[in-house]
């Protein structure tokens, strides 16, 4: 298939999902919170997404005079770019992917590390105390979860004997990795929530404390990029969980593989939203001590045991 077409389709699908999540999240939250949510614009309020997008485009795009302008403008873009790039290595179906990198997982981890720059730079360049505290928290949080996020995936890599997402999915033909790699999954899931800065780990934003944290000063479409970037992040982490632990596109053959892939991805997106609806936010030092004292040892232990078992089976 034509490369450009595939890239086009991937971008379209991914961005539509992210935009659609605005509506999905608001409706789901309202169902769980005994209220109606957006139901006025179009059928079931579906056009709310369009209304919101138009609103974001027409809002005044204010750059604070006291900010560091080039960095301030650049920051939201970094987030979008790094997340969208990662989608390139994720296979939606056996023969539908932008490119099958043999270092796919490393590519994802590298991009997610770069994504934090967006938040740190955005918060720093805003020259606002709340944004600054948010940025500081984001970098502290990143240092914590990046370490065990990478380690938690090594078990999967060892079992599939490859860094390629495609090879990993194919290695799950007999058994999804959620079973042998249960601890890896738990650690990765928690790291993934932290990575996307979603409740309960929205510590850099912490609206009750820091107003809007690192993006307090952002408005218009620059804010929109952070906003959509968050949903892209949720979609990405859900897609990766589905791919690495739940067999990606694998599923009974009466439906196309892409269907199974999206079904699994959406399931985890809903879990993300449910988490947001139900949990309070821990303090940042509590997240860090959980990371260093519990999740890091757990991830290391997981590698040790996986390695031992694999050696034994050989």
């Amino acid at each position, binding site marked *: 298939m034509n490369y450009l077409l595939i890239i086009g389709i991937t971008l379209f699908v991914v961005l539509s999902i992210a935009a659609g999540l605005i509506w999905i999240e608001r409706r789901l939250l309202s169902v769980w919170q005994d209220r109606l949510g957006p139901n006025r614009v179009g059928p079931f309020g579906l056009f709310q997404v369009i209304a919101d997008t138009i609103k974001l485009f027409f809002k005044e795009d204010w750059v604070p005079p006291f900010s560091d302008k080039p960095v301030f403008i650049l920051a939201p873009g970094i987030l979008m770019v790094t997340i969208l790039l990662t989608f390139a290595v994720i296979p939606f179906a056996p023969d539908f992917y932008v490119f099958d990198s043999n270092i796919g997982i490393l590519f994802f981890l590298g991009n997610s590390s770069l994504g934090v720059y967006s938040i740190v730079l955005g918060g720093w360049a805003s020259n606002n105390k709340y944004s600054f505290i948010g940025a500081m928290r984001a970098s502290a949080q990143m240092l914590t979860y990046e370490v065990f996020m990478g380690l938690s995936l090594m078990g999967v890599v060892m079992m599939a004997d490859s860094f390629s997402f495609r090879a990993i999915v194919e290695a799950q033909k007999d058994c999804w990795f959620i079973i042998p790699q249960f601890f890896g999954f738990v650690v990765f899931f928690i790291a993934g929530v932290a990575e996307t800065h979603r409740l309960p780990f929205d510590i850099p934003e912490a609206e*009750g*404390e*820091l107003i809007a944290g690192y993006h307090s000063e952002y408005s218009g479409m620059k804010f929109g990029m952070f906003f959509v970037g968050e949903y892209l992040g949720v979609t990405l982490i859900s897609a990766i969980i589905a791919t690495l632990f739940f067999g990606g596109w694998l599923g009974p053959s009466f439906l196309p593989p892409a269907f199974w892939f999206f079904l699994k991805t959406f399931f985890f997106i809903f879990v993300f939203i449910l988490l947001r*609806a139900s*949990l309070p936010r821990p*303090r940042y030092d*509590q997240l860090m001590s959980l990371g260093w004292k519990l999740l890091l040892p757990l991830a290391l232990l997981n590698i040790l045991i996986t390695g031992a078992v694999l050696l034994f089976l050989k």
Partner: protein
Amino acid sequence: MNNTDRNILSEIASAFGDNAILYHQLTKDDTPTIWIEKNSLVKVLQHLKNGISEPYKMLFDLTGIDERTRTHLNGQPKCDFTVVYHLTSFERNEDIRIKVPLKENDLQLPTITNVWESANWYEREVYDMFGIDFTGHPKLTRILMPRSWKGFPLRKEHPARATELAPYVLTETMRDEEEADLKFNPAEYRMETKSEDSDFMFLNIGPQHPGTHGLLRLIVQLHGEDIVDIIPDIGFHHRGAEKMGERQSWHTYIPYTDRIDYLSGVINNHAYLLSVEKLAGIKIPERADVIRIMMSELFRIASHLVWIGTFAQDMGQMSPVFYAFNDRERVFDIVSAITGGRMHPSWFRIGGVAHDLPDGWEKLVQSFVDYFPKRLKEYDKLIIKNSIFKARTVGIGVYTTEEAIEWGITGSGLRATGYNWDYRRKRPYSRYEDFDFEIPLGKNGDCYDRAIVRMEEMRQSLRIVQQCINNMPAGHYKSDHPLTVPPRKEKTMQDIETLINHFVNVSWGPVIPVGEAMVPIEGAKGINGYYLISDGSTSSYRSRIRTPSFPHMQMLPFISKGYTIPDLLSILGAMDFVLADLDR
């Protein structure tokens, strides 16, 4: 004069000589009230706090009175201003009021901040409102009014209405000056701007901030995210409620009280009216009392629901606030069926309540009483037992019983330290003594204990409401006392006396007999009381509102030091304050 009265007076007389007490004033609420010279003020207060057995440990209230236009002096020393110190002894279950007379040309008296640290804000308020100087006060500046304010609002010559002043114009220079006034200067508070190894950050939280629940400004001195000190800047919500009391008739002031602690509606009416009725000597029929209790307890539940919802919201939990507001709406359904109003029904009246209960009220209230325990269990599971919630609240914002009393903390905040003190039990009013309920207590005095105490209080309030349903007495909902407003109508057309009373009370408003009284009650947030002075006219001579949020907020810097910004939100959330209650 009763026994305890004589005791404390003789104790003071024996310690300071018979001449120490200038005058012993009789008040309608039987609180021993003595006048002393300002030279002996600090010594006497020191003695009452530390020198006697069963001491007066809490500075309950501190306020001033402008005496210059008072007509009924009843033998009290002649003076222009009085400063009133209201102390509470928990061991004696007794209060004492100490008054110090001041002359207009010498408006000075020594500060008592070295006796009670909590006197700090109260003295600032008296300075702000009356222009009385407290020598030795660490920082005597305006507290409720803006710094640029001219005059002292609670002085009698200060206008009470905007129409008595020239139209207000905000010029650009004025705006700039006001803005400059609000700029924070650490040197003014003698605060360090850096430690040995790093600079401090001064973070301005509020007046518009999602975590402050209203117009409250906190200037936080930060070392990293650790709180070094906090300067609360209050007064943004000040509406001159006490001054309004001097203009409104005794009757028309009721709706203003609703809006003091605007979450607990009629509980405020209750506090105000008990003081008025004490002055007027009105006995309330049993039915009216029980109706009042039932409505107060429903409002206590409504207020606690807002607290649990917003507290969880402060912790980052999104959903409980919706559940809690839904349930509060159910309470308001009952309130509106009975009173016609929702948040501020202004439904209690001098001598009773506005109407009798409507037909079928039992069913309505009973359905809520049956429904709500199940929801409380859900809140328990969702919030109180959540391990992240526990991690955010256990061991945060701790204070001991002694510290609480020192700072004037009352209500759930005091009971969370394990001290059993509830006015509904200790000084029962409106027949609370006839009800069977428990006073929930905490142990550690941290944010978590404050939360579980309030959760349990909702259950106990529900028990009281159930007892109200089961035992609602027959009888009248209003007293037959002539000062009841509006008076009973039965005899209006037959008897000239009643007709006159009716006419006077409705047209001018009732004339409440000369005297002073304060009947503090257990509000939803702590002890609430109206110290009313009647000069024999249709409105009060002075209406002092003692609210719980004021001392609670004053304690904030003391209990927040050393914690971090997220903990500050836990502490604020657990405090359960209302800005209108704080600034009045």
